[in-house]
């Protein structure tokens, strides 16, 4: 059951987008194969972590899930449908751009784009969820890196998503900032939002758990529940990655 982490008294009447199913999905850009034959499911429940070295195609996978890109080959379905319900997904991009407005105005804008009323208490509640209570009138661009990341999270939550895609949300943060964001992610996940998160940080993957989808060079190498993946990886590449090898 989802409690209203992001929905204040508004009952969302939309079909579920889960499971999101990738079937032999390819993505090519300028004759370069970024993803090849990717097949896996994103189902409800604990977070799905996309794990892999830089350049393995994690960002592209997230963007495909968010329908910001269309596959060059293969099929992508949302609960069996060709396209998602539209309003049930949200994404936080790597290095999110802040609009040149106040924190509150950024959130109101996101609410308006999601066709939700931007009442001040809704804005305040969202800020509260990400630990930015009282930041309404600060210029968004003046926030610290960690604060901006959390604001971007609030913007995504403004869509009251069923599925939340996160692209390396703590990549540029210090340990304190990282912990802050991770705590929020855990809270959101417990409230019932499906998290799909890309990371190349093993420690983070271990901490957040769920399902691991391990990618190298655009291919899914291994897919397993987190404890199994970390305890006994079944592929060579996974073993080398867990051992800390730089080149897989």
């Amino acid at each position, binding site marked *: 059951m989802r409690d209203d982490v992001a929905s204040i008294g508004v009952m969302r009447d939309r079909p579920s987008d889960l499971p999101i199913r990738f079937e032999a999905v390819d993505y090519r850009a300028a004759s370069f194969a970024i993803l090849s034959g990717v097949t896996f499911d994103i189902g409800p429940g604990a977070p799905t972590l996309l794990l892999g070295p830089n350049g393995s195609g994690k960002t592209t996978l997230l963007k495909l899930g968010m329908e910001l890109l269309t596959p060059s080959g293969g099929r992508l379905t949302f609960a069996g449908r060709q396209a998602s319900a539209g309003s049930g997904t949200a994404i936080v991009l790597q290095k999110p751009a802040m609009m040149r407005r106040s924190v509150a105005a950024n959130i109101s804008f996101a609410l308006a784009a999601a066709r939700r009323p931007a009442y001040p208490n809704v804005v305040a509640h969202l800020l509260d969820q990400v630990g930015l209570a009282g930041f309404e009138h600060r210029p968004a661009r*003046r926030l610290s890196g960690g604060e901006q990341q959390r604001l971007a999270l609030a913007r995504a939550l403004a869509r009251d998503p069923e599925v939340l895609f996160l692209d390396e949300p703590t990549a540029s943060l210090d340990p304190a900032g990282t912990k802050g964001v991770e705590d929020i992610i855990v809270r959101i996940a417990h409230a019932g939002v499906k998290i799909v998160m890309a990371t190349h940080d093993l420690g983070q993957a271990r901490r957040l758990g769920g399902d691991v989808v391990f990618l190298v060079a655009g291919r899914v190498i291994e897919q397993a529940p987190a404890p199994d993946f970390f305890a006994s990886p079944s592929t060579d590449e996974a073993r080398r990655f867990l051992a800390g090898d730089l080149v897989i």
Partner: protein
Amino acid sequence: MEAAGAFDLLWLADANLFAIVRLSLGITLAATFFAALLGMPLGAFAALVRFRGREALIVVLNAFMGLPPVVVGLCVFLLLSRSGPLGQLGLLFTPTAMVVAQTVLISPIVAALARQVIEDLWAEYCDEFNAMRVGPVARVAALLWDARFSLVTILLAGFGRAAAEVGAVIIVGGNIEGFTRVMTTTIALETSKGNLTLAVSLGVVLIALIMTINALAWSIRRWSEKHAG
């Protein structure tokens, strides 16, 4: 020149000067307003819409930022002359013609600079707009609003350019006493009458006006940096 004569204060206090300054401001403000009406949407369009010939349009707009005022004056003159295509309007040698000429002169400046500003901001916001699934109208509105301080600065630049020029307004306006005589054309006239000290005093007033505009532009930028980031 003598210090006493350097500032012909008696003349400066003349109601005549007030009328000339008022006309100058009126014409240039009106031209800036119309240039904004024409140039901002054009700049936004060139920034956001991909169409064939877009690059050519951008080159033309950038080039026309440096349109010589006399050339603009001449072209508008030929258009509005009673023997010209728009002669029936009887607009030649009127303040309206001067507004038209100055609008033509500064519209490319407004359009070219607005395009640059909006395109740069668009590059920043594009991914987020996609992620938030923002509709096209809301995108344009958001870009224009968020760029408002830069856009106002652009308008002030256009204003300054129009306020400082003499070539266009003297040709289409005719520098008619009490009717189409503005600050710059008065300076030109008084110089040719040998009233150099008076011309200098007027020049000082004009420069003071342009300085004020620029100081205003600067404070707007500083304020915006402080408050909206």
